[in-house]
């Protein structure tokens, strides 16, 4: 098991290195003017560019880039959005709202998805299943920003139940959370549907499996057999859908943060790309990849815990 985890971590480090390399080259090969600020004199500009090694060949810049990150934890300096500020600090300031948003979406969608999928599978081909399955199709196929706009229109304009935008200066936790409810809802609908769809299919398959039948011939009741054989076994492949789900939530939150003016990393990434603040963009890309990789690592490890075939097979 330890070997399995170490292997996973090794693979993760390799991936993060590749992501760093790729995002550096893609962004730096784009034509860039670092400074467009007319108030800064050309001499000062030249000096600053010198300090950022921008006159060296790209490969040398790449070396400085890696050296900065790996040895000093230095991701560079913002040049357009917050000129002169350390990129890492900018990200750290913004991290909390993003984390809250993404974390709560996950927290909401996993149990609700499991519940919906289980109900649909156990009540297969009844009206309840049809309603759930219909909702699943809608929620999977319509992107989250459409729901976000719909929710905003209905629940803040027609019936003003919730605040339209995220309230960064909320006087108390409840107020702050209340302004987060709509973005969390908009982000969660898709993932709920994804989990429900997979679990429904998976559960229906395991329910009709031979080992379910065997469990019943042993003398277990249908409920006992469903719980200890079908349900647990269905969770194994579900763990795998959680990876694309998390990246999906993060991708969705880029737009959702913008729509609800959440001062998080998503909006920052969009802004930095628009403004051409390349140091910031690269750092944010690495940040997002790192989050994805960590979730993949967690899922992989839990996968090994749930499924002995992976744990024991990987320990060879």
């Amino acid at each position, binding site marked *: 098991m330890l070997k399995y985890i170490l292997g996973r971590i090794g693979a993760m480090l390799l991936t993060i290195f590749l992501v760093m390399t790729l995002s550096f080259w893609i962004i730096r090969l784009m034509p860039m003017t670092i400074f467009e600020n007319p108030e800064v004199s050309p001499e000062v500009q030249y000096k600053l560019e010198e300090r950022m090694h921008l006159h060296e060949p790209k490969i040398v810049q790449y070396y400085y880039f890696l050296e900065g990150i790996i040895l000093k934890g230095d991701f560079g300096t913002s040049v357009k959005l917050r000129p002169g500020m350390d990129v890492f600090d900018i990200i750290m300031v913004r991290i909390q709202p993003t984390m809250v948003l993404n974390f709560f979406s996950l927290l909401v969608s996993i149990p609700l998805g499991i519940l919906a999928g289980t109900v649909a599978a156990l009540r297969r081909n009844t009206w309840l299943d049809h309603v759930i399955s219909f909702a699943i199709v809608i929620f999977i196929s319509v992107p989250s920003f459409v729901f976000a706009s719909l929710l905003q229109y209905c629940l803040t304009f027609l019936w003003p139940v919730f605040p339209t935008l995220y309230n960064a200066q909320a006087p108390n936790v409840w107020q702050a959370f209340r302004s987060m409810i709509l973005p969390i809802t908009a982000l969660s609908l898709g993932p709920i549907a994804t989990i429900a769809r997979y679990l429904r299919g998976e559960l229906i398959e395991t329910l*009709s499996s031979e*080992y379910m*039948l*065997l469990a019943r*011939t*042993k*003398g277990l009741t249908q409920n006992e057999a469903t719980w200890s*054989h079908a349900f647990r*076994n269905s969770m194994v492949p579900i763990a795998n859908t959680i990876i694309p789900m998390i990246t999906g939530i993060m991708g969705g939150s880029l737009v959702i943060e913008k729509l609800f003016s959440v001062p998080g990393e998503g909006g920052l990434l969009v802004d930095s790309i628009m403004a051409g603040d390349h140091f910031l963009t690269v750092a944010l890309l690495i940040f997002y990849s790192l989050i994805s990789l960590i979730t993949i690592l967690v899922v992989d490890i839990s996968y090994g815990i749930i499924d002995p075939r992976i744990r*024991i097979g990987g320990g060879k």
Partner: protein
Amino acid sequence: MAQETILNVRDLRVSFRAYGGTVQAVRGISFDLRRGETVAIVGESGSGKSVTSKAIMGILPSNASVDAGTIMYDGVDLAHAPENVMHDIRGKRIGLVFQDPLSSLNPIMKVGKQITEVLTRKGMDRKQARAKALQLMKDVGIPEAERRINQYPFQFSGGMRQRIVIAIALAGDPEIMICDEPTTALDVTVQAKILELINALKAERSLSVIFITHDLGVVAQMADRICVMYAGKIVEMGTAEEIFLQPAHPYTWALLSSMPDLDTRDRLAAIPGAPPNMIHPPKGDAFAPRNPYALNIDFEEEPPVFRLSETHYAATWLLHPKAAKVDMPESLARRIQRMKEAGGRA
């Protein structure tokens, strides 16, 4: 044979609702299982033999229904017993061994837990249950049971998994064991060992066994009595000796002729055609269209069951007193002659 009958199936009819209509999988079968004997049910795929075993266990799928008949066991009609009664019978009184050990074990549960699961749920304490599981694993011939009890099914070979499945079936100390094609998914060399094991366990625990298979060759070394099923009906029933040495139904002839024979260079006789569509079972004898000996009446009216001896019955018009006398195919007759000379061994 005057043993006591412990399971009695009378005129059992089971049908499935399918898209094209109602599939009549079992169309009125009757047989007895006596204490300590092995009854084999033999037939092609789709003849209704597995459905019969599922009906006895009360685990028919939800689109199936028992339309008529009774399955009497210990004063209870299993065909119409409520779920809570069946819980106490399944596993505890009647155990079932499935065909495919690869898919009938839960892949992510330790085999020990799969054996003891029912015991602990019914109130046995863990230590006792574990000891019992170890004993069962030894009984079914799994070496190093102490180590293997904590392993998962994928760490076992096919034959070993089938032994686990048998151990699970025996965990509740049942008196009837139904084996539904227990060796079909296994290698031939492993098959023989599993059959030996079933026979040994049967003797040790004085089990009564219903053995379901499509392979007459397997039946020869297992069964006391044989029911030959075709298209949801029992077409011939008799002791193993009667079925192998004096077969009376053309379908049994065809089955016997389709067994490979090492002693002759005769071509292996396949049965022409395919089993009938059971949504619209044919009029008359269902085997008639594939039967070279079919009489005109076979296409008109179902044959009644003719009694050949105390234990031997067959449903074919050929046995009617007015029917012309037809003998079994000559190659089969020769083969039976050789079997008799070899001492009744198939």
